[in-house]
């Protein structure tokens, strides 16, 4: 609209627009949300690219993430240091991948990272068990958990190494009709 914002330079906004799926207005709104998380830490003026990171504990308190059982893993997957402290770049990146316009391939890459709890680039049985327990709030019996994990690996594992590589995961995702609509956070 009419008022000239002073948070970003035009160059920066163009860069953000080209690198994410957000429009200028949405990027400014995201900055507002980022600032709200830690008003003392996050400067309002980003024109000279300040280097500040909001810690994990504050980010997972956002209403969109608060109840998500995978909130820690989501934030860790997008952080550069792997500890979950996000700079604004990474914050925007996270919500861009989780927006509804991100393509399936991109979402699959990050979904794989999220579910890979021990970060070894494979979804092994322990990763699946942890995922399942978080999904069902530990209401399944241990035998049922074992059974479901075995069946899941059996169905998706194509190269027979009893764990899921990214190729197996992506192949399974292409056959899931709901993936695009469920792997989606509105902000």
């Amino acid at each position, binding site marked *: 609209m009419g008022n000239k914002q002073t948070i970003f330079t035009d160059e920066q906004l163009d860069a953000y627009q*080209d690198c994410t799926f957000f429009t200028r207005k949405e990027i400014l709104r995201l900055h507002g949300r980022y600032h709200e998380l830690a008003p003392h830490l996050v400067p309002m003026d980003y024109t000279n690219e300040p280097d500040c990171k909001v810690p994990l504990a504050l980010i997972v308190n956002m209403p969109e993430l608060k109840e998500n059982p995978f909130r820690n893993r989501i934030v860790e997957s997008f952080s550069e240091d792997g500890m979950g402290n996000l700079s604004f770049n990474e914050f925007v990146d996270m919500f861009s991948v989780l927006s509804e316009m991100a393509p399936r391939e991109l979402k699959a890459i990050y979904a794989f990272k999220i579910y890979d709890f021990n970060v070894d680039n494979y979804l092994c049985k322990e990763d699946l068990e942890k995922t399942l327990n978080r999904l069902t709030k530990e209401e399944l019996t241990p035998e049922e958990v074992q059974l479901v994990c075995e069946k899941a690996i059996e169905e998706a594992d194509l190269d*027979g190494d009893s764990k899921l590589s990214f190729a197996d995961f992506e192949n399974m*995702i292409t056959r899931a009709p709901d993936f695009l609509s469920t792997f989606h956070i509105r902000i």
Partner: protein
Amino acid sequence: MASEPWRQGAREVYGYTEGNGYPGDQQSLRLRRVSSQVSNQNYPQFDWNPPPAEKDEEGNRGQPRDLRGSPLPMALKRAVRQVQQMQVPVVSSRESWKRKKTKSLHKLKDNARGWLSFVTLWSKSLQKIGGNFGGGVQSYFLFLRFLVVLNFVSFLLIAGFVLIPSIVFRSVGDSLVNSTGPKECMEYDPNPQGLVVFYNYFLNLLSGTGFMEYSYLFYGYYNNTTVEDSNFSYNIPLAYLFTAVFYFTFCLICIIARMGTAARVVMVTGGSAVGNYSMIVFTSWDYGCLGDRATKLKQKNIHYRLQVDLEEESIKKRAAALTLGQKIVLYALRVSMCFVSFGLIIAAFYGIFVATDFSQKNSGEQGILGLIFEYLPSIVITAGNFLVPLLCDQIALIERYAPSTTVIVALLRAVFLRLVSLGVLLFTLWSQITCVGETTVKDCTLCQYNYKVYPCWETRVGQEMYKLTLFDLLINIVVLILVEFPRRMVVDNWSSKLAQWVGRQEFVVPANVLGLVYGQTVVWTGALFCPLLPLINTIKFVLLFYFKKITLFYNCRPALKTFRSTTSTFFFLVVLLFGWSLATVVMIYSLSEIRPSMGCGPFRFFPSMWSIVPKSFYNLSEITQEFLFFIGSQAFSIPLFALSCVVMCYFVTLASVYGKSVALLRAQLKLEGRDKQFLVKQIEELSRQHQILKHTAGAHD
């Protein structure tokens, strides 16, 4: 621990390749994945060298798009973008103009998308519903919104071509054909005589009689006016007919277009039976879930789904283990229960037939009793649609199908019941109007329809459809107020075991969707006889949206058994298509077989509604007539038919080839995995042997 030597120290490398000659390749990013090991190297490295210079015209056009979709962290993406911007490519002026145009087109598309989401009806409400109740319930409301838009656009169509010209030309035009025919057939006087009690107006509003009968609402008010000017002519009967036909075609196109998007997803995923568990584990969590209550519910939901799947597995195992005797008993039980449910449905049909018969015979009653008689068919249909599925659910418990089969069977039975009960109502009406098709019966000889009881039969049919629509809305509101709100108040405030067992209302998606399909089928059937019915239906569906939303948020808990949102959209549209075909059959029959009333309407002096088309045809110019004759002749249609067969064969072949190549690639993937394992074993074997050799060689020394 088996080490994988060739993976050590590897890094992920991403190479950009231009989409040279691959028009469908929008993401021209190709990943060459070699896995990395170090845990804090959480993101891939980027290959800073520009790709080998390939001289192609598309050039960097695709790259801004690719940057968004590339899995690099943001800082890297911005750096890449800077590098790209610094690489000013040397292009011709025409090329740079093209690039500027595509860039501005992309910006325009983004702006349009933002504007569209602002203008789209109810988008915020739908977001809230989806976040709190899941995709299945949201798909019901999306379907409802689609029907609202469809009805509103249809109303604009009808208003533009039939209603407004009728209003404008009512006094101007002149009748097409002079009155010929028996005088008794042309007697039609819908205006009430004498003093009318004031509450009669209210009764007339509800049943479409009295002051509402002779109005733009029903067929009988329209005249067969034609306006002939020096350079403008408008033929109202022809417009009426063509608008009705076009309305049906338009609805069909909308439904099929919407089915196309849903079907594509279904085709890609190739059926949901395979890969259940892995998909549930990885794709069932809805990241858009808001709020503590919704999250807990989602978790219970997933738990329930997994339990159901595990139970289905054990049922299948048990079913396979049945002895022959037990199998025979089970199948005999299923067949007999099938007959029982069929018998229940037939009983419902008979009830509707009797009620319609009775209602039509006693249509002269006044007052409240008269109103009840008028609404008798609607009441019986609604009661049947409520009771029979309940009983069928109980029968399904005896049949002991697998849970997913039970849902499908129940749905099919309900669809059959609803649509065919409407068909029975229409059949009863038809049998009374045309004396069961025998025009030699006493009442029908004179005008080929029962002129004594139905001086204007189209208006009567329109009135029936109008009553059905209104009654549907009234029943929904009444159930809301008298059943759902009290239920919630009882369950919330009275803490007894009975109240807890009954529990809060569940929003059952399939039953609600069937209600929508039924309502829309009634509108389609009645649109020819009651042109303003789409407008009434738009208002009805808008009201229904708000009422259902209120009851959803205040009275309901989300269903434990969810409906898959993507395949269910496709299913809703298929059922809607069934309704559409029923309405089309009715329309085609009324257009061509039944003689229009002689006392009212735009077609009053034609032997059938369709006969106006041949008659007007000869008023066209010579050239147009010859052209149309040519299109209809064999010289044109047979080559056209042959050509479309060839095109269809081509597409079918293409589809089968794609399917085969997908299967081939999958098999190849499996094979490569096995090759990898074999090679790993070989390497281990060889290295072990090498170690042994070294050891023994060392020992000898």
